[in-house]
């Protein structure tokens, strides 16, 4: 290996990085620059007005392509596959710009420290959005560089070369593969200064096609490895003492004889951290159970009622985050203004793969295999927990069995690292389902007051939304950020009013600090806000006896955005044949929302039997701009709808006796197959820019169902989960 060239990185002013990995292997990519990172972070929750930063982002070099001698091309990317099809979508983008056959491209989730660290993590429906152009630019530049090298190696002019499927041929018939060019290239790679010419959209072969998911063959045979499946030789199993009650802290510990119990290798009793590592998981649990741990519980008991009381709109609280025209002139003085309140409960993520991490802390470095949406953040969290440097930690990304916002927390890896550092062996920690319910974070509860009025011509004159919510985004910032801002951008995601109002409109965000942990959940505030706004729009339509579709079309603005919203509404109406008679006892409800640059409209078909709401079919129209993988867009739409239906019909997390009201799915059921609707999806729109898809489809679901229930029964249900009177 002595003749292996050292790893070299060259940074040009345009931000490209190239390196020689192993012998004759070229890697090249695009440094995602700081402005771009900041933009992505501030967009993290539709923060278009008051962007906030998570502190200075690390300047993370991104080195995306590896060309192997066998002429296969590997896309190294630190986006995590959690079912959203991201590996496939990014491969499609790269393969198209490289103009190579599908079989030639391979995607690898990159380790931290490998040069492709992605400080954004995977979430926020932004992976395709943020990578679409930079990835194409890097691929196009790579092609230019390979052409220049081929010209030199063949002794011909660049203009005489043609490229086909990773082979460059000169007009005298000689050809070299990309792999051969890289293997033979002895000098420094020079990154061209000119911006690369990108392929026209008409040349796309894979973008816009439903390429089969690259991760699925191993998912139907059980071969794919998730964090929970990782095992290391000589590993120990760790368990951590966790409170049964919210807000409880460890008062005192008598470890008894835990340290000498069978299989036990390490017992840690430190302030706030009591844990055991043993040869088997049951040995570790047995030892932990043998300890005498006394918990301090909060002096004021945390109750469900107290949480609901706290999360209740107070007209004197909140920050005005949207104010157009003069809504107060009518809100305060007109008897024509109607009002309604809506409430949504807490919810768990219920990712079916319980959280798991295996961490191997050694003198010479630290390796971690963790189910995480944020490998770079996990590396920092692990390092901080054991007093090492983040650069010493390699987080090996693994497939995730359901993310939904739950895999953003570094404490999981930190705990395993503390045990591993003490035991000097690799340690795996797997959460139980009960721990997931008791000790995770939940979607915050929300309360909404909607007010509005419609004139006799069917135009909205005034509309206002005041939302109270527990925190979503603020828990990842220093406390001072929340104190200064006064509102949580994530909580009101989807909460600004997108309809026109002749006199004025306003949105008020009221932050509520709760004594239990609330944070990210798919779509952040989108599901709750969509429920409140879209239910209320139907109530406004009712005041003038207008058709809910016609009322929406009339009151969306005549702007490019408004026209896209009208486009999805019309498309879903056509798909579902809105306005034509349904079977007796069935009714339609309609709703729409916009998120992450994507507009979605849905129609739900419901019936009621024995007091139960049945959702038979959900129709959806999606305008996600430029679509990379239509079947992927459909799959994400189906998934978002099902998760939304589950929240609308069955899910509700409550506090009971100061702790979690449910510790498993017996008391917190999820949507089952027999409750799950058929789904039809139509994709509309187009253009040159992709929109996000991971979260937007969850926006309209609850409103569409509630509106259908109203159409069918005359009951306006204003709390999730929907329960008929």
């Amino acid at each position, binding site marked *: 290996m002595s003749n292996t060239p050292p790893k070299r990185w060259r940074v040009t002013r345009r931000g490209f990085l190239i390196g020689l990995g192993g012998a004759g292997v070229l890697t090249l990519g695009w440094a995602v620059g700081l402005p771009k990172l900041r933009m992505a972070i501030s967009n993290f929750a539709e923060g278009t007005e008051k962007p906030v930063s998570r502190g200075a982002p690390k300047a993370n070099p991104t080195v995306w392509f590896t060309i192997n001698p066998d002429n296969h091309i590997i896309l190294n990317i630190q986006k995590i596959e*959690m*079912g*959203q*099809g991201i590996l496939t979508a990014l491969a499609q983008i790269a393969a198209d710009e490289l103009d190579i056959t599908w079989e030639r491209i391979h995607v690898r989730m990159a380790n931290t420290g490998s040069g492709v660290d992605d400080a954004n993590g995977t979430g926020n429906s932004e992976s395709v959005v943020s990578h679409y152009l930079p990835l194409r630019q890097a691929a196009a530049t790579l092609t230019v560089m390979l052409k220049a090298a081929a010209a030199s190696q063949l002794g011909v002019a660049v203009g005489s070369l043609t490229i086909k499927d990773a082979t460059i041929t000169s007009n005298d018939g000689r050809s070299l593969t990309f792999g051969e060019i890289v293997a033979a290239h002895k000098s420094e790679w020079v990154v061209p200064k000119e911006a690369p010419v990108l392929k026209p959209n008409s040349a796309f072969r894979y973008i816009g096609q*439903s390429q*089969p*998911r690259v*991760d*699925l*063959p191993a*998912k*139907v*045979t*059980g*071969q*794919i*490895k*998730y964090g*929970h*499946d990782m*095992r290391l030789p000589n590993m120990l199993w760790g368990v951590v003492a966790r409170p049964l009650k919210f807000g409880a802290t460890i008062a005192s510990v008598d470890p008894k004889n835990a340290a000498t119990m069978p299989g036990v290798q390490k017992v840690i009793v430190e302030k706030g951290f009591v844990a055991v590592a043993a040869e*088997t*998981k*049951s040995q570790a649990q047995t030892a932990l159970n043998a300890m005498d741990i006394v918990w301090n519980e909060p002096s004021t008991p945390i109750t469900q009622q107290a949480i609901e009381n706290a999360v209740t709109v107070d007209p004197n609280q909140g920050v005005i985050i949207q104010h157009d025209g003069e809504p107060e002139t009518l809100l305060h003085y007109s008897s024509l203004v109607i009002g309604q309140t809506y409430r949504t409960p807490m919810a768990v993520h*219920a*990712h*079916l*793969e*319980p959280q798991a991490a295996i961490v191997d802390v050694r003198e010479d470095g630290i390796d971690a295999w963790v189910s995480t949406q944020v490998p770079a953040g996990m590396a920092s969290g692990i390092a901080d927990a054991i007093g090492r440097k983040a650069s010493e930690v390699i987080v090996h990304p693994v*497939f*995730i*069995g*359901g*993310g*939904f916002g739950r895999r953003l927390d570094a404490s999981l890896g930190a705990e395993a690292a503390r045990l591993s550092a003490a035991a000097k062996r690799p340690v795996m920690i797997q959460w*139980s*389902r009960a721990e997931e319910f008791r000790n995770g974070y939940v979607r915050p509860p929300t309360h909404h007051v909607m007010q509005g009025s419609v004139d006799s011509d069917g135009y909205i004159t005034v509309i206002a939304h005041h939302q109270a919510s527990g925190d979503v985004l603020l828990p990842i910032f220093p406390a001072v950020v929340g104190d200064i801002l006064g509102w949580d951008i994530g909580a009101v995601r989807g909460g600004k009013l997108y309809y026109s109002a002749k006199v004025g409109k306003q949105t008020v965000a009221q932050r509520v600090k709760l004594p239990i942990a609330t944070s990210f959940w798919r779509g952040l505030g989108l599901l709750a806000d969509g429920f409140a706004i879209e239910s209320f729009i139907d109530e406004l339509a009712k005041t003038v006896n207008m058709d809910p579709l016609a009322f929406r079309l009339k009151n969306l603005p005549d702007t490019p955005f408004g026209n896209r919203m009208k486009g999805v509404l019309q498309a879903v109406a056509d798909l579902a044949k809105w306005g034509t008679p349904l079977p007796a006892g069935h009714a339609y409800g309609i709703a729409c929302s916009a998120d992450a640059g994507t507009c979605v409209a849905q129609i739900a078909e419901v019936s009621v039997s024995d007091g139960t709401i049945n959702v038979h079919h959900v129709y959806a129209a999606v305008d996600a701009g430029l679509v990379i993988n239509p*079947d992927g867009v459909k*799959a994400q739409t*189906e*998934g*978002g*709808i*099902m*998760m939304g*239906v*589950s929240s609308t019909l069955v899910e509700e997390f409550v506090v009971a006796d100061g702790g979690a009201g449910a510790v*498993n*799915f*017996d008391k917190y059921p*999820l*949507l*089952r*197959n*027999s409750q*799950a*609707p*058929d*789904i039809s999806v139509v994709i509309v729109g187009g253009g040159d820019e992709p929109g996000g898809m991971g979260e937007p489809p969850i926006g309209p679901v609850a409103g569409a169902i509630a509106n259908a229930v109203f159409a069918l029964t005359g009951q306006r249900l204003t709390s999730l989960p929907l329960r008929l009177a």
Partner: protein
Amino acid sequence: MELIINQKTYPIPDNGDSRPLLLVLRDELNLTGTKIGCGAGICGACTVHVDGVPTRSCQTPVNSVVGKEIRTIEGLADANGTLHPVQQAFLDLQVPQCGWCMSGQIMTAAAFIDGNTAPTPEQIVTAMDKNYCRCGTYYRIRQAVAHAATLKKEATS
């Protein structure tokens, strides 16, 4: 103590206990294709076949399956790697998203179409109703099970 899993014999320690088959598969034999979800027999992620019957391995004491034919997702495709019709159908319809529940879904469906090659939509829903999928692939699962039954019928006719 010995277990017969996918037609192979695995010696395991007889601890005199009734530890769940699931933990033996995952933690002792490193057969991690079978997944844990709830540990309470609710979600179905841990479904395996015991003598052809879909069984929640998290609720199955290991000493109760000694001498029985256990089949896991790792043993569902045939010896030369040809996928079971259910696996093929789940691939054809691009069913999995995160995939964690899928071995349970597929094992449940495989046992179902073994006993019913012409299932009605209602029978499919009933058969698949006790397997959670948090990613929300339920509609595709229903379509894929129907497709699998067709594939199986074609293969045997």
